[in-house]
């Protein structure tokens, strides 16, 4: 997949745990882990918005396009 999810980078920058982020955005830890490892087929705008709000960042900080 050419789209890289950089949630772990933003979590490290904000010094926030995955569990705390999952609670803050209201999705399960399992789904957040799948998203973090890029094992999902898509992200809802609502989820993206919640993550951006919790991590105080832009969608571009979370997603990156890297040609294969």
């Amino acid at each position, binding site marked *: 997949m050419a789209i890289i999810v950089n949630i772990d980078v933003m979590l490290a920058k904000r010094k926030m745990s995955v569990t705390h982020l999952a609670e803050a955005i209201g999705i399960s830890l399992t*789904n*957040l882990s799948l*998203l973090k490892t890029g094992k999902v*087929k*898509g*992200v*809802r705008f609502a*989820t993206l918005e919640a993550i951006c709000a919790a991590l105080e960042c832009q969608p571009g900080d979370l997603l990156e396009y890297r040609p294969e």
Partner: protein
Amino acid sequence: MTIRIVRIFLWIAVAFVAAGTLAGLAAVGHGAFTGKAAETSLPLRIEGAQASRVVDRQSGAPVGELTLDRATLNVRSGGLGYAGVQALDIALTGGLWLMILIATIRLVAQFARAEHFNTKAVHRLRLIGWSMIALNGWMWARMLALPPLLLSTINTATGPYRILPSISQGVAGARSARVDASLGFALLAAGLLVLILAEAFRAGSQLREDNEAIV
């Protein structure tokens, strides 16, 4: 409530089909082992039979014509070969019906658990569809091929008749009777519809999986 009633009807159907299949197999088996001839009924259409006029009972005026060319023949046919084919017929027909009914029961149970779109439903629908088509095919094969193969000639007081499949043409000058088979297409059509439904469920299953993979 509706699903419960459907399941009760389906289980009753399973019980009837299973009992009928077992009874049929037992009768054929008993006949084969005791040497008793198996009996079957063939609907026949007799070619070149005499026609008679239908008249009004009181006035005697002609009101139509009745062609006396149809008969049902009770055939007693012995031999292990006949019994074997008869047993195969009963087992195949009963087995396919049981397969259809049990797959339907499992499908209904799955729907009752709100598990509509998954691969199990698709497989079950495909099984039902192909079983219906196979059953229809076997019915055609049985009606078209088996009776004349099992009993090629019948003897009557006026001479022998050759028995032909229902779709064949009689030979000019020859005395023949044709198996009067009504070829049904209902199961074939139903089977094809179920296969189309299975494809719709496959697409639905794919959509559900995609939806679940979106967070």
